[in-house]
């Protein structure tokens, strides 16, 4: 069984950073790359070659990254709750 080292405190910044990826910046960049390529190549022959796959893929990757971040912060929250419950159960009310 796979084991992961996680600390709730150290997970949160990573989760937040992962969730911040999907701000549309990368997708805009990918679209700009595509426009530059097609226009720089000149003519319209390249349009059929490169359709919108790059921006679409980058957009999906960013979305998926957000999902991973969501799961991570969910796990961090669950750990905090579990730790709190354990402290409560052992009578440690700090």
């Amino acid at each position: 069984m796979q084991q992961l080292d996680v600390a709730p405190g150290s997970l949160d910044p990573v989760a937040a950073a992962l969730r911040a990826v999907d701000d549309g910046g990368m997708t805009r960049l990918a679209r700009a790359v595509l426009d530059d390529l097609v226009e720089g190549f000149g003519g319209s022959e390249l349009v059929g070659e490169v359709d919108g796959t790059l921006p679409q893929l980058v957009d999906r990757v960013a979305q998926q990254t957000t999902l991973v971040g969501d799961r991570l912060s969910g796990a961090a929250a669950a750990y905090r709750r579990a730790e709190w419950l354990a402290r409560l159960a052992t009578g440690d009310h700090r």
Partner: protein
Amino acid sequence: MKPPEGDPDLLRRAGVRCARLAAELADVESLLASAAAGRGMRWDGAAAAVFGARATEHGRAVRDTRASVERLGSLAAAFAAELTEVQQLARATDPQATEQARLEERIALSRTRFRREMRIVQAALSQVLLRLPGTPARWTGPVVLPPGLGTRPVPLRPGSRWTGPVVLPPGLGPRAIPLPAPVCASPVAAAPLAGGTGQSA
């Protein structure tokens, strides 16, 4: 011969932007790596395994995307250099010289090669896109229902009367709304008194 068409500056800019995009993707990659291996508390079991596998798989998709973006950037930069050189040569040489025909042939060859490489990169990108979870073809266009099936009532033509069935909301018709059966807790055995006086032995 007119100088070959195409704008090397734009292609060069595409290369630079590809490098920027690749750098951002690399950041995501390292974030995912640190998400899959943090420091401190131990997290294991099925949830950890599922999360680890998913983060790793996603990291692989990000890496493959980055590889394609880098390839795209280097292809654009190389073609930009080629285009610049041929355009300069075309301007420098005599328009009637046989040299021009050679240049024309050379740039046509480069363009064909560039387009072929683009197709390959495009295919690689499509592969990654198909591998991403949740990609299965889904209709994202507008949902068009036949008139009367949606939430909007079908307007009656002036002068005509509604002849269809009259459907009343539940509770307004002659039929009573069936109530769910009450939920009863099953009887439980009496719990022993706290403290344990030894009677239960």
